């Protein structure tokens, strides 16, 4: 006898519904756990095990090869704070994270307000500002390396020389200028991206609401300060969180632009960690830096979440 699949499944479904024994539920729950196995494997193999190793080796003098691993207590951690290279890397990374966060916020919010208005060429402007966030930062770093080349043939120096007659400016060869140049290129790559993020939040503000505020006699600045800015606080906390954590993790841009130089002026924590742990196989030392880095990022994330709760509580 031929039965249509629907009739068949309906029959089976009805019988299940009528007498569903507890073991079916148990089995279903066990089966649903099978779906969690792959991600559990990813977590154990690629997160938990390496984290455990980093933590363990950070208290040892492990050099990657010898079996003579000794417990050295907090020596590796102390070394970080007495090694000028490490201190330079910590200092520059924090400087980079803070300055990019501040500058990108300061540029992205006005940009978002402008590209939220209607004007001719708006889609073009949005796309162009957003585009630098699309290609690899490493490649953008290399491109800017040509533009900022400290030798006379860097195109920016050529232009400056043609306009003002000034000699070559050592954009990437002077300590301070190199640090500022990396920040400037980062601002160029990410301002449009964060402006689009703010724009998404701006667009959720009903326009008749802003219209009502205007009719009530609020001027432009008042509307921005007391209406728009508070409504943007969720966007700001998200944007700052991304900028701060990505800023602390930065690696591509300084290394492609300056190779971490001049000296150690633009060496980042990540670069120092790779040099120590992989190139020089000082696993103990690198592990201490990794654990410290994890703590810094963790503290920043928690502080940001706390701040965002506080701000959102105050404004809503």
């Amino acid at each position, binding site marked *: 006898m031929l039965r249509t699949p629907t009739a068949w*499944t*309906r029959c*089976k479904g009805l019988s*299940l*519904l009528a007498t569903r024994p507890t073991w079916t539920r148990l089995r279903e729950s066990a*089966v*649903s*756990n099978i*779906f*969690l196995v*792959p*991600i*559990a494997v*990813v*977590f154990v*193999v*690629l*997160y938990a*095990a*390496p*984290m455990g190793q*980093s933590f363990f080796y950070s208290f040892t003098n492990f050099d990657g090869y010898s079996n003579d691993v000794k417990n050295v207590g907090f020596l590796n951690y102390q070394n970080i704070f007495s090694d000028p290279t490490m201190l330079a890397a910590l200092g520059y990374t924090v400087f980079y994270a803070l300055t990019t966060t501040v500058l990108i916020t300061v540029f992205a919010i006005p940009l978002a307000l402008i590209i939220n208005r209607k004007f*001719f*060429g708006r889609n*073009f*402007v949005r796309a*162009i*500002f957003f*585009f*630098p966030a*699309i290609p*690899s*930062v*490493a*490649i*953008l770093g*290399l*491109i800017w*390396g*040509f*533009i900022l080349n400290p030798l006379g043939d860097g*195109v920016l120096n*050529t232009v400056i020389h043609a306009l003002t007659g000034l000699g070559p400016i050592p954009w990437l060869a002077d300590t301070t200028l190199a640090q500022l140049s990396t920040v400037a290129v980062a601002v*160029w790559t990410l301002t*449009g991206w964060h402006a689009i*993020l703010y724009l998404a939040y701006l667009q959720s503000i009903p326009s008749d609401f802003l219209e009502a505020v205007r009719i009530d006699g609020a001027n432009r600045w008042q509307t921005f300060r007391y209406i728009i800015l508070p409504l943007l606080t*969720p966007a700001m906390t998200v944007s700052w969180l*991304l900028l701060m*954590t990505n800023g*602390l993790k930065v*690696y*591509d841009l300084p290394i492609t632009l300056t190779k971490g130089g001049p000296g150690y002026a633009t060496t980042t924590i990540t670069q120092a*960690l*790779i040099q120590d*742990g*992989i190139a020089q196989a000082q696993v103990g030392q*690198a592990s201490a830096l*990794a654990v410290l*880095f994890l703590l810094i*990022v963790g503290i920043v994330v928690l502080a940001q979440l706390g701040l965002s709760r506080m701000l959102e509580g105050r404004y809503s």
Partner: protein
Amino acid sequence: MRTPRHIWTSVIMIVLACLVALPFYYIVVNTFKTQAETASEPFALPTHLYLQNYANVLQNTTIVQSFFNTLYVTAISIVLMLVIGSMAAFGRIVGKGRISAIIGVVLVIAFLVPGQATLVPLYRMLVGVHLVDSLNGLIVLYSTGSIFCYYLILGYMRTVPAEILEAARIDGAGPFRIYATIVLPLIRPILITVGVFQTMWVWNDFIYPNVFISSPQNETLVLQVYTAVGQFLTDWPSFMTLTVIVLIPMVVFFVVMQRHIVSGLVQGSTKG
């Protein structure tokens, strides 16, 4: 009445946008020039169609190989992380047991761990299993992205009415069938969004290839551009040409996927 301000906004913003785009103009325009022209007239349009730089790059570099390497790593990694992430999200939705809850908490912690904190042990681990300097080794590393996928997919899956899954179950469909034939088609929009977002990460990534890949035949596109700086030390137009060729897939991707990139940005930032 509204014209003056509106026009000024247009003019100023278009000029600013052109300034922002100037570095791209600079490198594209110089790929069609000889070295001498590049030095003397960096911003001028090329006087004639000079394609020697392109021929030079295509002949003297392994760029085609690198392109396929990058494509292979990106495609497999994205499929892998979408499967792992969506399976986990589905498991969390249907499984109400203790294991499911524990995994939920554990994944929050994993989400906060920066890749750098595990880099050195992962390197040693991959050396142990002979996956250093291997494209498959990169795929293993990128599978860490499945946790980000899991988060976004979980958020989206919570909006799928539970009745649909319940109805399928009553109809006798097992969990695997529900996952494959009902859940996956339903969550297609978020799979595309997350997929686009993660494609940009894997395709553009520099740190993993730079640390884990050493032989030229295993280079990804980004790594190849980086190592080519030494190769083309004095030949800037060739280097710029290589850069432009590598940028082309990203431009196409941007034009086709712009909407998804923006929605990924918004969803990724509100849930991430």
